[in-house]
């Protein structure tokens, strides 16, 4: 295309009609099929659940200040960490980036007017919010004490808690995942605008594609595991009972067959977001686009083959341990490639310090550390010593909190002007980002140490030799809590008093930025057309000397 369009269109004047103007009643929101509004519905609900899960663990960390506890009974403690796990995994992390940013940004990024099945999209939100609300109700009224992993025979025959109800809630929410996955896959396959070929898709779109595949294929296995536990518990069917020829390990295999890909569901979207942010704020193409795509796909596929590394001491055969250990080392390779590529993206860039970049950097560092500690756990002898200890707890929190939550924050801040048409306060955002990074390290580095020293997980009372580490960790948790509350405050403030944002405040190249902020209901002012690779921030082979913003060429035009 030879047309030269002004890449950064001035904003429409008020009253030009954004998606926010299409109906102001609550009903209009609750019956919307607009992917942008559904994304906001998701954002509000997952934020709520995040804070409920956060309160639960806040109570836990408070209790752990003393080795003999302060104010909880063991049963209450066990219910609290179970609540935390269930809510954070299934009602926060799994939906987080896909349901919010995937829903809002993905169609715009590929030049589509909406997702493939808008009504299914709304249904997926209702499944999510209904299932999650039901489960939280169950968790708060009596609770579940099995841990989020629901292992039998404890969960099926021994626990005196609302196992079936909680499992049912999670089961329902699983369908929300599947529906979202189906929707995104169909959207990316069929609704890309003219010119948006597969290898012009931004990496966020690719990450949505791969994560959707994983969601569709893995979630049903979880559904079946929960169903079997419930059948055993409710009907007395001896599914995992060795006396009837059964095996509790079958549950573990089925459960982890989902739950390992689940952690990739949690990290792949984060990787996608971070790619977008690094490119924009370093004014550089993402280094090695092809390898990045290949890595996403490899992680998605090989991620299905490593579930046994959660079961090295469970009683599976030594040969199985060897195979799963090997594959776990292999699956780390594409992640390492991505870390190197993100780092290389910064080379000779024009790097800004805006909040999204700070969060993305936090992701980069913490994901690297978390991933490396994964190698420790992939080594069977180290895993035997450290599994079911705080070392594992620290490992997965580093990736999920240090990684995914950081990336979630990066994305929220990056796309905030697009979604709301407002600019957030950059100083407070940077402050919160740095506080979050520091708070995270104070919370979880002590956990690595005490895990290696021998502190087991899911422990209400603990040997007093570990107290200093617990106190440090709980102190860090306070800092983290403050850091999480800050965005709630300044982002909400920006909605009412924030400076109005231009269409493309970051001068980004993505198609979603070539339209007003906030966008109209139909996403674009005219049918979009893509005519360039993504991340066209500089000429090939040369980095710009001055980082002149007008050099950044949008991926297409739509206004």
């Amino acid at each position, binding site marked *: 295309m030879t047309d030269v369009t002004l890449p950064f269109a001035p904003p429409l004047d008020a009253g030009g009609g954004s998606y926010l103007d299409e109906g102001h009643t609550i009903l209009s929101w609750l019956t919307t099929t607009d992917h942008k509004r559904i994304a906001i519905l998701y954002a509000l609900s997952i934020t709520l659940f995040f804070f409920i899960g956060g309160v639960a663990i806040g109570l836990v960390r408070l209790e752990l200040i003393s080795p003999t506890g302060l104010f909880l009974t063991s049963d209450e403690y066990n219910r609290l960490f179970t609540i935390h796990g269930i809510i954070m995994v299934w009602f926060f992390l799994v939906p987080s980036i896909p349901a919010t940013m995937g829903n809002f940004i993905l169609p715009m990024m590929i030049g589509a007017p909406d997702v493939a099945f808008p009504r299914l999209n709304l249904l997926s939100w209702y499944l999510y919010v209904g299932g999650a609300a039901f489960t939280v109700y169950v968790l708060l009224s009596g609770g579940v004490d099995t841990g989020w992993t629901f292992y039998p025979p404890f969960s099926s025959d021994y626990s005196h808690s609302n196992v079936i109800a909680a499992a049912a809630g999670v089961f329902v929410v699983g369908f929300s995942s599947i529906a979202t996955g*189906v929707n995104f896959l169909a959207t990316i*396959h069929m609704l890309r605008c003219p010119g948006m070929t597969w290898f012009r898709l931004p990496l966020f779109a690719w990450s949505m594609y791969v994560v959707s595949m994983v969601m569709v294929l893995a979630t*049903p296995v979880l*559904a079946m595991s929960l169903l079997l536990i419930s059948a055993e518990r409710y009907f007395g069917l001896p*599914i995992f009972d060795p006396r*009837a*020829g059964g*095996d509790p390990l079958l549950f573990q295999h089925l459960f982890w067959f989902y739950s390992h890909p689940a952690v990739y569901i949690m990290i792949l979207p984060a990787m996608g977001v971070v790619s977008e942010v690094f490119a924009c704020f370093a004014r550089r193409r993402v280094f090695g686009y092809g390898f990045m795509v290949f890595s996403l796909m490899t992680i998605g596929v090989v991620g299905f083959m490593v579930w046994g590394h959660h079961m090295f001491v469970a009683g599976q055969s030594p040969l199985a341990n060897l195979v799963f250990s090997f594959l776990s080392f292999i699956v780390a390779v594409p992640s390492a490639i991505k870390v190197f590529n993100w780092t290389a993206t910064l080379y000779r860039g024009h790097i800004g310090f805006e909040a999204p970049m700070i969060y993305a950097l936090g992701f980069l560092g913490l994901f690297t550390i978390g991933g490396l500690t994964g190698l420790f756990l992939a080594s069977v002898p180290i895993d035997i010593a450290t599994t079911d200890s705080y070392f594992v707890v620290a490992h997965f929190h580093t990736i999920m909190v240090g990684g995914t939550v950081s990336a979630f924050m990066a994305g929220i801040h990056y796309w905030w002007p697009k979604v709301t048409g407002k600019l957030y306060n950059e100083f407070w955002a940077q402050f919160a980002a740095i506080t979050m990074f520091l708070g995270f390290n104070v919370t979880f580095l002590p956990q690595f140490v005490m895990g290696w020293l021998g502190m087991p997980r899911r422990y209400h009372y603990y040997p007093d030799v570990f107290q200093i580490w617990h106190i440090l960790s709980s102190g860090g948790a306070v800092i983290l809590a403050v850091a999480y509350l800050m965005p709630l405050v300044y982002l909400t403030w920006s909605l009412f008093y924030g400076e109005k944002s231009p269409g493309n405040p970051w001068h980004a190249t993505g198609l979603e930025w070539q339209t007003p902020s906030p966008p109209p209901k139909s996403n674009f002012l005219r049918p979009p057309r893509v005519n360039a690779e993504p991340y066209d921030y500089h000429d090939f082979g040369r980095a710009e000397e001055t980082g002149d913003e007008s050099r950044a060429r949008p991926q297409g035009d739509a206004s």
Partner: protein
Amino acid sequence: MSDAAGALREPWPNLQLQRQGVGLGMWMFLASEVLFFAALFCGYAVYRSFNAEAFRIASAHTEIVYGSINTVLLLTSSLTMTVALRAATVQLRGLTLFCLAATAALGAAFLVCKGLEYHEDLKQHLFPGPHFPLSPPATQMFWGFYWIMTGIHAVHLTGGILVVLLVFTLFKRRTVPVQGSTMEGVAIYWHFVDSVWLVLYPLLYLAGRP
């Protein structure tokens, strides 16, 4: 023409793409359903390999007559569904409606037959628990899986019947035109439910019979 315009939904640019999209979406949903049943069948397969003798003994007590009748009913319903889909594509509205109704009826007949079979099974106390008549203990495992596998299949079938009835109503009232993308999705799903039964049937009924 007006029918075709009514069939087109946001955000699809044209009806052909929409049909393809719905088909693709339904196949992907089916992929998740396949994994759902695969997890269950995997459990069955593992336990059968651990307890081959017990599973043979247990399977011999399934009601093969009911099971076989059900197989015929479902296969026929897949035939009527296929005809319905073809009829819809060439806009033979009457035939489409008739075949949809027939499909639902055959599905319902399956459920009735299944209900009678369950009644028979329960009369023989073939439900794992204190009155379970068979030994060795792993026969209870087989029967546990029997109830779960057939139960979940029945739930899916019921869902399918309800969807077929809903679609029938929407077509009858001309709320949705017959040649849209709806038929394709429904047909794919129905065939899937039938296929699951075609795997269930030999696993449960034929395992204990030479």
